[in-house]
């Protein structure tokens, strides 16, 4: 049981978290545009999250909080 929360407003959509995720459950949501004008990263399948925090480790903007 793990949970990943994005501070979506501050996401720059770089996608490094998406590449880092071993479960492939993150994605850049091209449909969305945040306050900064970027398409942010989103969680596609929370249930599959293992709380490894690889996404947060690679996030350059410190917008990811991981709970486990």
């Amino acid at each position, binding site marked *: *049981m*793990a*949970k990943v929360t994005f501070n979506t407003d*501050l996401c*720059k*959509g*770089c*996608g*490094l978290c998406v*590449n*880092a995720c071993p479960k492939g459950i993150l994605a850049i949501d091209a449909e969305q545009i945040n306050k900064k004008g*970027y398409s942010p990263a989103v969680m596609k399948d929370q249930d599959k999250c293992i*709380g490894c*925090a*690889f996404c*947060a*480790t*690679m*996030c*350059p*903007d*410190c*917008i*990811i*909080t*991981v*709970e*486990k």
Partner: protein
Amino acid sequence: MAIVFEKPKALTDAVLHYCPGCPHGIIHRLVAEAIDELGIEGQTIGVAPVGCAVMAYDYFACDMIEAAHGRAPAVATGIKRCRPDNIVFTYQGDGDLASIGMAETVHAAARNENITIIFVNNAIYGMTGGQMAPTSLPGQVTQTSPYGRDVNHCGWPIRVSEMLATLEGPEYIARVAVNNVKNVKQAKKAIKKAFENQIQGKGFSLVEVVSACPTNWGMTPQKALEWVESDMLPYYPIGVYKDRTAAKEAAK
């Protein structure tokens, strides 16, 4: 559920101005995590460089000063000599540390100045728009080496860690990278050690962090990290180049 990962306290709430995918944010976080874990925020004084990280003084929650281009080690020396009980670190890029500030870097190392230097090497001048750096690779295309860095014309890139490791002075010189999770974790350990060394009075500790500049390299953030692996790391190998204490212990 318990929080297993969140923004460190030693970073302020200021929004990082860096380009999307710029590893400066990762390296800032590693420094802040080290400060948090060592419980030294209230004693720490940081020195910001000139370069992309010029506004680091807004991002770190400890006392901060902004130095002239390349002068951070001298500024840090002045601070540390006045306040030896405070923890003093500089955060510098390759143009700042290895070009205009080379003298300050080498001499602070030679003095074994008890400070911590975080040296971000991304082989380019970022803030000014992508000019050739002292660490740009042979053949690397930049705004001021548009046909690729010609080593016969403008010389070879400088391997700072290897060079500083030849000095008697410094305590600890290590090169790390932030191109993948494994390397980021290793980088964190080195950065924390560089602070611990200072706390223990061991002296000059420099961590060279091989980083990326997606914007000025003209690559996506992920491609840039792959280029770190394929092109940067062969020229700038990861490793501990000097660790006086470890060497002494090994000799026992």
